[in-house]
């Protein structure tokens, strides 16, 4: 059930009033929202409901055992079991084909041909997201920063339909306390919620889908058939497409949760205005980068053990972060590019500090230059993220840098494509307080005027978007 569909609209029109009617009866509300969330999740493929349920039971059991035990060894053993169970499930469903086919091919190249039966394992939607959320719960309980909650509360947390499929990765400590808050049905922050939902809808349906169908998919399917300009614009278009697609989805998820009375953490903060890779990761998929920092980078040692260990930890974190996105070596290279550039930035900064150099003055020109560099490094990495193989990525990059193809016609670089890319970039430079003021103004409109305004946004979105609803890019992660 995709958010921008009539089916979901009907589902939500039932869930919203029922949820608020039951909100004051906590237990009933939890049962209801759990049932609604499982229905939502099972709508994709009912078989995976059992996987979600199984993950809930296993992680709750582990958390309770960790909490109940006073002995460090036992606690650590349960934690290890929990982490292995989670990563084992993820490895099987997401990486089984990848590992087996790579191992088979390696053996074949070594002359040790084997013929295993490889069956493509169906990837349960959202498994990467709910596995990370479950891990955060278990690890936080182990660390003693969070106490286990009831099975029902944990089940609601893991399956809550606004975030179960593609995040944002909401941690237990951010969500579970809200289950015990009193939510006042007379005070729903609807203007921010509607703003996020409709903004997200526009970004997804109009900008992302338009760029995807009109240039990105066509060029990446066959880069050698296109001129350098067309390929370069397609790479920039993909940068905007994936931003509009994923941030659009999380905007909708945050807005929907808000209508139900729940706050989710922000997931994007104008990432293409970043002036460095460090800055980029403070703005892009913020809930993932915080997760990777707290549950991978810091446990690896962070920057506590010297410069080279720090580089190793950064690099490793990003390699694994890349692999988290999908079972393909191209994702690992994507993570490697980010990790490598972060190490470079760190090295340069350390060297500057060691030489007692003053930081460069913060001029507008300097900032724009750093933004340009950062954006292009990010786009370089996106080539590997989008390409389905190294040869495909190689074709894209070769074509961009091959001067003999710069004069080739670029029929796909239309005014609409450039406008959509521009809109995706300009949106990030709109001052946040201007958006906040707009929301505040919108909230003071009479409800009828709010509804009519949103109806016109639906007209624009539906008329300007391509036919049909393309799945969200992050659904397959």
């Amino acid at each position, binding site marked *: 059930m995709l958010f921008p569909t009539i089916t979901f609209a009907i589902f939500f*029109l039932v869930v919203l009033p029922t949820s608020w009617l039951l909100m004051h009866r906590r237990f009933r509300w939890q049962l209801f929202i759990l049932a609604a969330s499982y229905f939502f999740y099972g709508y994709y493929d009912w078989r995976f409901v059992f996987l979600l349920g199984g993950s809930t039971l296993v992680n709750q059991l582990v958390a309770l055992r960790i909490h109940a035990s006073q002995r460090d060894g036992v606690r650590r053993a349960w934690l290890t079991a929990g982490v292995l169970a989670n990563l084992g499930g993820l490895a099987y469903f997401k990486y089984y084909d990848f590992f087996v086919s790579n191992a088979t091919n390696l053996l074949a190249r070594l002359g040790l041909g084997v013929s295993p039966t490889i069956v493509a394992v169906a990837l349960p939607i959202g498994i990467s997201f709910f596995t990370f959320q479950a891990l955060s719960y278990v690890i936080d309980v182990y660390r003693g920063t969070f106490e286990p909650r009831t099975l029902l509360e944990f089940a609601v947390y893991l399956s809550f339909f606004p975030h179960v499929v593609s995040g944002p990765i909401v941690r237990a400590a951010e969500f579970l306390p809200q289950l015990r808050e009193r939510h006042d049905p007379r005070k729903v922050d609807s203007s921010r919620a509607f703003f996020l939902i409709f903004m997200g809808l526009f970004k997804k349906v109009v900008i992302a889908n338009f760029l995807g169908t009109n240039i990105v998919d066509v060029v990446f*399917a066959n880069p050698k058939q296109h001129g350098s300009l067309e390929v370069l614009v397609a790479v920039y278009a993909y940068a905007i497409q994936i931003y509009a697609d994923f941030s659009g989805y999380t905007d909708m998820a*945050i807005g929907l949760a808000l209508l139900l009375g729940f706050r989710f953490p922000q997931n994007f903060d104008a990432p293409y205005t970043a002036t460095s890779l460090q800055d980029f990761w403070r703005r892009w998929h913020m809930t993932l980068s915080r997760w990777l920092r707290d549950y991978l980078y810091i446990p690896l040692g962070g920057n506590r053990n010297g410069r080279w260990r720090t580089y190793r930890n950064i690099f490793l974190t990003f390699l694994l972060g890349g692999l988290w996105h999908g079972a393909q070596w191209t994702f690992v290279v994507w993570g490697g590019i980010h990790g490598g550039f972060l190490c470079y930035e760190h090295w340069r900064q350390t060297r500057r500090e060691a030489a007692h150099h003053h930081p460069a003055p913060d001029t507008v020109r300097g900032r724009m230059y750093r933004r340009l560099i950062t954006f292009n490094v990010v786009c370089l990495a996106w080539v590997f993220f989008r390409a389905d193989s190294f040869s495909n990525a190689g074709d894209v990059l070769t074509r961009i840098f091959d001067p003999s193809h710069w004069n080739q016609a670029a029929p796909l670089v239309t005014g609409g494509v450039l406008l959509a890319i521009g809109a995706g970039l300009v949106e990030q430079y709109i001052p946040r307080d201007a958006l906040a003021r707009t929301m505040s103004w919108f909230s003071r409109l009479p409800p009828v005027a709010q509804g009519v305004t949103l109806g016109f946004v639906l007209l624009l979105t539906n008329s300007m978007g391509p036919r049909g609803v393309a799945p969200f890019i992050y659904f397959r992660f």
Partner: protein
Amino acid sequence: MPPPSRADLPTTIKWSDSSQPEPEPRAQPSIDDLTGDRDSPPRRPLPAGKVLAVGLIALLVGALLNAAGIRKTALGQPVGWRRDVSTFFADRLYDVSHALYLDRLRVDLKDLLGRSTDDAVNTRLPSPTTTTTPGPTPTTLPPRVAFSPTHQARLWVGGDSLSDTPGSELITAVGATNAVGVLGPVDSHISTGLARPEVFNWPAYLKTVLTADQPDAVVLTFGANDDQTLTGSGGGEPFGGPDWQAEYARRVGGLMDTITGISSHPKLFMVGIPPIRDMARFTNDYTIINRIFSAQAAARRGHVYYVDTVSALGTPTGGYADFLSNPDGTVVQVRSSDGVHFTRAGGDRVAGAILSAMRQAFDLDSWRTGGSTTTTTTAPKGKGPRGRSSTSTTPTTRLP
């Protein structure tokens, strides 16, 4: 008091920009610090009932303004009671919208975007002009046309979503021949076919596009969405029965004649449906469709070529496989996780089968030796286009 700078906010993530040791994992920041909504101007909250009212008004206004699009979406649903109910309400909605002139905004917007036909519904389908009643198989084939780098075959590729990856791989593969030029990227329209002209009318679309492009070769892939009740003129038949098969064959034949009747007289390469993970559907449904494609192509031998994908992507027994072995022993995934579509390697195999058929229809290689070409003129009875066995040498034929 000025708002805190970004660096002061606890959302800040510092990967490594501090030379100070990082603290041990600490207590989580509050959710209110993470929403990015601190220090925003105050907003007026609404009671839940009014929130619902705003949502309903938005949907109602949006539905009235988009009534034409909703009507088309409703028509595109699978045939059955849901479609009947949806189209009933969508038609009423459209009537109201039209009476109030609310549909004009969408029409004007679509005109502005150059997409004025988006909401149009055209269910007219052509009938075949070739007789397909049982009789002697045509044995005389048209001459095999030669192409070269200076006189390239103009190739058009399209179809449903199954055309995407093989089409792209074909475009790459024909590049190596130097004798084929492509007319554009793969022209794919997802979830389309010949069963539901109100969703997408392929014959009407192809007539327009191909008349403009004047291709020499057309590669068309669809059928996998057609195992359903037919709608449009001559429709109404549930899937699979004799009447359904007769009507579907009429549509396929009409489409083939429409394409080959374009003034450039292109050869049509009709790509069959490969085995899918749901083998029951393949066996019960897709083999019927493949058989119709094959029979209709055979009736137009020399003009239409049926490309069998079962041998390219199936197991030795014609079954489904996610992974297949290469001659060097390495394995390669050929199908995507949905068990229907292709990976690039799978697409490559289908493209190979299409290119092989193209080489039988066209002479793409004699320009390399600069000589004449071998042109097939006759074919034995009962064999497909690739079953030719008697050949004669004739001068290379070139299109004007």
